[in-house]
């Protein structure tokens, strides 16, 4: 397995309790078990909370795609982040 994309969502009423970080850590652990090499996260550039979360989990910025989305009357930029895991192909 090579590359997967992670998604994390937390209920409004359960935020700011570290649940997002715990989920990201669990996803990373599972990805390591499954021998993934790269996890990609795509986060809307205005979503500061999620960006902080994935950066704290070790994801590195791979670039921002400008105005790639449109919602609620606004163009949205999307940050692409990636976490490279130290696994070997086929290993």
């Amino acid at each position: 397995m090579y590359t997967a994309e992670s998604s994390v969502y937390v209920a409004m009423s359960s935020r700011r309790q570290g649940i997002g970080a715990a989920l990201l850590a669990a996803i990373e652990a599972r990805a390591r078990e499954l021998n993934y090499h790269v996890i990609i996260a795509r986060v809307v550039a205005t979503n500061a909370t999620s960006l902080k979360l994935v950066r704290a989990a070790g994801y590195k910025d791979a670039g921002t795609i400008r105005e790639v989305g449109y919602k609620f009357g606004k163009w949205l930029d999307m940050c692409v982040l990636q976490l490279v895991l130290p696994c070997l192909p086929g290993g």
Partner: protein
Amino acid sequence: MTIDQSLRDALLEDVPAITEIYAHAVLNTVATLDTEQPTIASQTEWFHHHDKDHPVIVAVQDGVVVGWGSLSVWSPKQGYRTTAEASVYIAPDHQGRGIGTALTLELIRRARTVGLHVIVARIASSNEVSLRVARHCGFLLVGTMRESGFKFGEYVDVDVLQRLINTE
């Protein structure tokens, strides 16, 4: 006949030629990270995922399809419906003659016509020819997804590029 005059919408009957050109890239290059040899059936299915807003175009010389390009859905999520992903492939013995540039510029023109706002292109960082064509056509580098692909026994870095379409 100039190259521009030989560009047209792809027809179902072009799918075998499109498949042959794509198969060469699949089997021999990192122009695509596809590793499964495409079949006429699989490319026919792909063809049917395109429409007026997501065209497949071909470059024809002397009645033969020598290259193709497409604007494909970037994401099924509706908030991304103004974004498409571009693909361009040229038959190996017709490369280096500007056909890729002509197809890319035509895809940009089509994107503008149908009201798309952004074209995204993903190109292996080692694919200097395709990167040069994309940059020449106004694509800007967004960033590099390091080691996000694997082909021919090694990890492949993939550059993400984008072209904003002036819809004014």
